[in-house]
């Protein structure tokens, strides 16, 4: 159930160019969140909240971690929030990933840019359950790369940069051919990336996490719909998603 909670900022640090990692403490959110869900964050002076994925969950410390890129006014303001301050958050929002794999299976994680964060919490949870994790992470260029070491702790990790300044050059799809023998793929990133991932991995089972501009963030306003193969013809990303089976929605 979504609650409106105050979350205390435990730490905030820059982990790559324009990219902040923030650890937030709150009992309810940390205890109920699952990988794939997001927080809907209020920022002073802004009518709309900002949706940011949960990138890590630590039930012992009662924290969740978020990672975000400075893109506009809101994320810039969020990057200025410092240790000890309180954030007004709706969460945990949306549904988590379908964690359908079992011991011995292999999960392929494909993240692009700010689509990388939700992959981390999923990979960590899977790896705790002894599921093999292979990651393919795409970034614009070297200075935007983050969490490489953390993903390597989970399993084999391929880094791709658009300009080739680090890892392989190109798009995540360019290295997908190197990855064999996985049972389910999970992907989050810009729509063009998700489309080409879907095409490249046609026939494979997969889950994708979508982004859209949101109004309410709880399913009431119809701002965030995506066409879907259902009777109604659409799904709401905020409340039916953000995670969907790749065959469920029309990209």
């Amino acid at each position: 159930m979504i609650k409106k909670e105050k979350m205390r900022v435990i730490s905030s640090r820059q982990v790559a160019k324009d990219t902040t990692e923030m650890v937030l403490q709150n009992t309810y959110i940390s205890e109920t969140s699952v990988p794939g869900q997001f927080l809907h964050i209020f920022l002073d002076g802004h009518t709309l909240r900002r949706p940011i994925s949960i990138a890590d969950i630590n039930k012992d410390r009662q924290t969740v971690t978020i990672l975000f890129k400075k893109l506009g006014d809101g994320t810039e303001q969020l990057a200025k929030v410092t240790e000890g301050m309180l954030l007004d958050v709706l969460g945990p929002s949306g549904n988590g990933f379908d964690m359908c794999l079992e011991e011995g299976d292999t999960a392929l994680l494909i993240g692009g840019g700010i689509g990388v964060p939700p992959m981390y919490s999923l990979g960590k949870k899977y790896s705790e359950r002894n599921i093999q994790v292979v990651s393919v992470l795409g970034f614009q260029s070297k200075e935007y790369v983050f969490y490489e070491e953390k993903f390597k702790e989970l399993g084999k990790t391929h880094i791709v940069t658009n300009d080739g300044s680090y890892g392989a050059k190109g798009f995540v799809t360019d290295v997908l051919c190197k990855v064999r023998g996985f049972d389910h793929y999970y992907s989050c990133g810009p729509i063009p990336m998700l489309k080409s991932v879907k095409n490249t991995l046609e026939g494979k089972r997969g889950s994708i996490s979508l982004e859209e501009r949101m109004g309410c963030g709880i399913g009431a306003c119809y701002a965030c719909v995506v066409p879907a193969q259902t009777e109604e013809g659409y799904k709401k990303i905020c409340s039916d998603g953000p995670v969907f089976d790749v065959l469920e929605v029309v990209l």
Partner: protein
Amino acid sequence: MMNLEVHLPGLNLKNPVMPASGCFGFGREYSQFYDLGKLGAVIMKAATGEARLGNDTPRVAETSSGMLNAIGLQNPGVEKIIENEVPFLAKYDTAIIANVAGSTLEEYEFVASTFNEAKDVCALELNISCPNVKEGGIQFGTDPYMAAKVTEKVKEASNLPVYVKLSPNVTDFVSMAKAVEKAGADGLSMINTITGMQIHLPTQKPLLSNKTGGLSGPAIKPIAIRMIYEVKQQVSIPIIGMGGISNAEDVLEFLLAGASAVAVGAANFTNPFICSEIIDNLPSTLEKYGINSVQDAIGKAVF
């Protein structure tokens, strides 16, 4: 004890605060946050004759002290709303207002008459002011003759009180208000959103896929207040006021300007508890300014 009650045609409200159409769905999602029975009323999302899928995304953008939306009247159609949504809301001790939209006179009549079968609906809000659909809505809302016509037809088709929701995108909204009053409207609802646009700098194109969208939020409050104040001087049917309300002080401002009740839209997105919090704060706010009841505040700045 402060008396918050207001009595409007078909609506005996325990307090004047209700969520605005389109900003609260059909209440389900907000019912997880607080008891909807606390609300004076609920205005449901627009209903059309058939289900509508609305516009392409992006459908919302943020602006200074406001937002643009171009949902495009997405809804499951009047029949599904009566079947699935009204019964849910009827469980709560609150008045239900249905927002009626359409592309043609006939569709408006159909939607309105279909709501006759929904015994828990207390009143209709006739939406002739949605700026976000290509056909229907707005052409009825910018021409006094058409506005009067659709009001008459809906009054004939319906056995419920009808509140006509006016568009602010007109030169002479007082004439619009008078025209629909003359055509039999039981009340007015104002204002709907103001047409606006945002250009997305990275793509150098309009951000919303519908290009234009409706501006709402605190940014438009002074425009709403002025329109209500001027209409209040010229018509005698009650007004449900809206446009940028985000706290109890704003509610008082609308009441003083001439609104008999108020609706809260975009602020629900900023804070899902907003209607509940406003209702909690209203008594002390009225008291602070020496006002004895909601009824006493209505139109006080006008006369």
